């Protein structure tokens, strides 16, 4: 088990190296550059050249890449050309928000999706089944930003049940430790701060959860239907076990493998794709910042972000593989 984890983590190194080479070449091939973003169309060739020199972009690409690698080893991602702050600082401030939002969305999607998918399978062909399958189709089809606006209009602006923007009410004056606001509140025992941060997560969390929820409902349903036909479920029934035991021990556990895979994929997607939701709810996560960096040709930020997402994907997939071995002894890792 331990060796498996170490091996997978070591695989990160060649992955990141290859990725960085590709990114370095691709990003610099994009038309325009940071000097255009800064100066607009009006800059003279001289000022453009000055800016490029300033940012170190006038040197040969190999030299630039060597410098990038040297910094990477010290976990230094350079300085944002847009905000002039260290990229790591920006990420430390913004990434926790997106992580919190992703976790919230996943909890909602898994917490609702698995039971709903199970029930739909058990009541196959009846109302609940049709409703959840139809509902999940709608969930997949509705664009997230539209749902986000609708939720915001109804529950924040009309009913006033939830805050309409931000991560926390600034008047609470919460202490910052990790920048995970909910976690900070719990760690510092500022319960009101934790609750307020959690409250801010609900609406964007629901909006973000809609697609993964729909996917998890469908995968769970299909998987449960398949397992219900397995011989060992019949054996369990023949033993006279209660429906509850049959469901938990024999059906759900075996049905979870494909669901675990899809949860892993969803987690990666959510972390990198919460841009629209974050924008609608003025939620200071990483999404909006990265979107801005793209138009700014902010190479250090983009490089750093994509590398971090790659690391996250590898880690999440590692977790998924580990969960496999917990669920299914046949794929137990060595």
């Amino acid at each position, binding site marked *: 088990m331990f060796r498996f984890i170490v091996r997978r983590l070591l695989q990160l190194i060649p992955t990141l190296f290859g990725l960085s080479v590709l990114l370095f070449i691709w990003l610099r091939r994009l038309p325009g550059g940071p000097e255009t973003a800064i100066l607009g169309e009006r800059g003279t060739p001289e000022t453009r050249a000055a800016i490029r020199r300033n940012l170190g972009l006038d040197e040969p690409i190999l030299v630039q890449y060597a410098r990038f690698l040297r910094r990477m080893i010290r976990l230094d991602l350079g300085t944002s050309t847009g905000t002039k702050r260290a990229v790591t600082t920006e990420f430390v401030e913004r990434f926790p928000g997106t992580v919190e939002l992703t976790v919230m969305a996943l909890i909602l999607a898994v917490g609702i999706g698995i039971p709903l998918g199970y029930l739909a399978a058990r009541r196959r062909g009846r109302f609940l089944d049709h409703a959840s399958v139809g509902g999940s189709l709608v969930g997949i089809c509705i664009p997230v930003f539209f749902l986000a606006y609708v939720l915001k209009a109804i529950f924040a602006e009309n009913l006033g049940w939830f805050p309409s923007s931000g991560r926390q009410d600034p008047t609470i004056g919460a202490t910052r430790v990790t920048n995970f606001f909910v976690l900070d509140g719990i760690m510092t025992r500022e319960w009101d701060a934790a609750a307020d941060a959690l409250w801010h997560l609900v609406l964007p969390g629901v909006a973000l959860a809609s697609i993964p929820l729909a996917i998890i409902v469908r995968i769970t349903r299909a998987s449960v239907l398949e397992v219900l036909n397995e011989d060992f479920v019949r054996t369990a029934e023949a033993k006279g076990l*209660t429906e509850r035991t049959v469901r938990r021990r024999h059906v759900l556990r*075996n049905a979870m493998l494909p669901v675990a895979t899809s949860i892993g994929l969803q987690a990666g997607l959510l972390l990198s794709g919460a841009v629209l939701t974050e924008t609608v709810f003025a939620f200071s996560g990483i999404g909006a910042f990265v979107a801005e960096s793209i138009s700014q040709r902010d190479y250090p930020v983009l490089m750093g972000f994509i590398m971090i997402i790659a690391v996250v994907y590898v880690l999440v997939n590692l977790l998924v593989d580990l969960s496999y071995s917990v669920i299914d*002894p046949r794929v137990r890792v060595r």
Partner: protein
Amino acid sequence: MALLEVDDLSVTFARRGQRTVHAVDGVSFSVDTGEVVGLVGESGCGKSVTSLAIMGLLPKQPGLRVGGKAVFDGNDLLQLDDRSRRDIRGRDVAMIFQDPLSSLNPVIPIGLQVTEVLARHRGMKGEAAAKEAADLLDRVGIPDPRRRLKEYPHQLSGGMRQRALIAMAVACQPRLLIADEPTTALDVTIQAQILELLKDLVRDSGTALVMITHDLGVVAGMCDTINVLYAGRVVETATRRPLFRQPRHPYTEGLLGSVPRLDAGRGERLNPIPGSVRDLLPWPDGCAFAPRCARRVDACVGEPPELVLTHDARSYRCVNPVPVPGLTPEADARATAPTTTEPGAVPAQAEPADPPAVPGSGPAPREEETP
């Protein structure tokens, strides 16, 4: 009264836009305490569906209808609610399935799969349950049971898996065990071991056993009474020796005749039953076996053959049965009024409804009635 009395059991699957399938069509048989009863027939004859219907394990689906009765110990299993059925399953009536690998849950250890029965029906927990489970595995011949309890099905051999399934089935000392082709997925040497094990368990515990199989060898070695099924009906019922010596139904005869024999001469060919089980006549239109039957006569088609009871407690459903040497041939009887023949009215073989009066044995029961 018999332990299990199956009476006119029928299972039909109706699908919209498709012909209704009568998987089981009026099956009746009974099982006494401690008796080993065989249900024999080729694939698709309704053996497994019969057992699943009795256990209430047929997958719930629209269009499924189960009729008739299956009275176990005074309760009609088909009428019980889900809860009482679950109470009986595994405790009083247990079942062993065909494919031991797919019948075991791949993701939980063998131990839990045994102890969950003990916990459910015998309220055993923790160490007591683990000890009992180890004893059970030991009893079914699994070596090193303590270690096996922690293992998963994929770590066991095929024979071991079937033994483990048997251990789960006998965990609560059920009064009736239904074994649905328990040896089909195993290789021959293991088959013999498993049959031996089942025989021992039945002998030691007095459990009644319903053995569902297509394998006449299994039947010959184990069963007291044998029911031969064809197209969802029992076509012949007899005890073991008479059935093998003098099959009456042409289908039974065909089954016996199609078994390859080691002492057959070189170059001798097998005698298969012509046609396939799909070439059947719907029962209401006559004998379902008629299209494949070598002894077919005109009376076979038109009306379903009545059940004929004979003197040695056998019964068959045929208007032109295989004649028994030494007995008056019934050729005339079937030619005249075959389908209306009442049980007991068959010439030369009819058994009197009452046992012959033996002088001197009459007064005995009357004495008990005197105050």
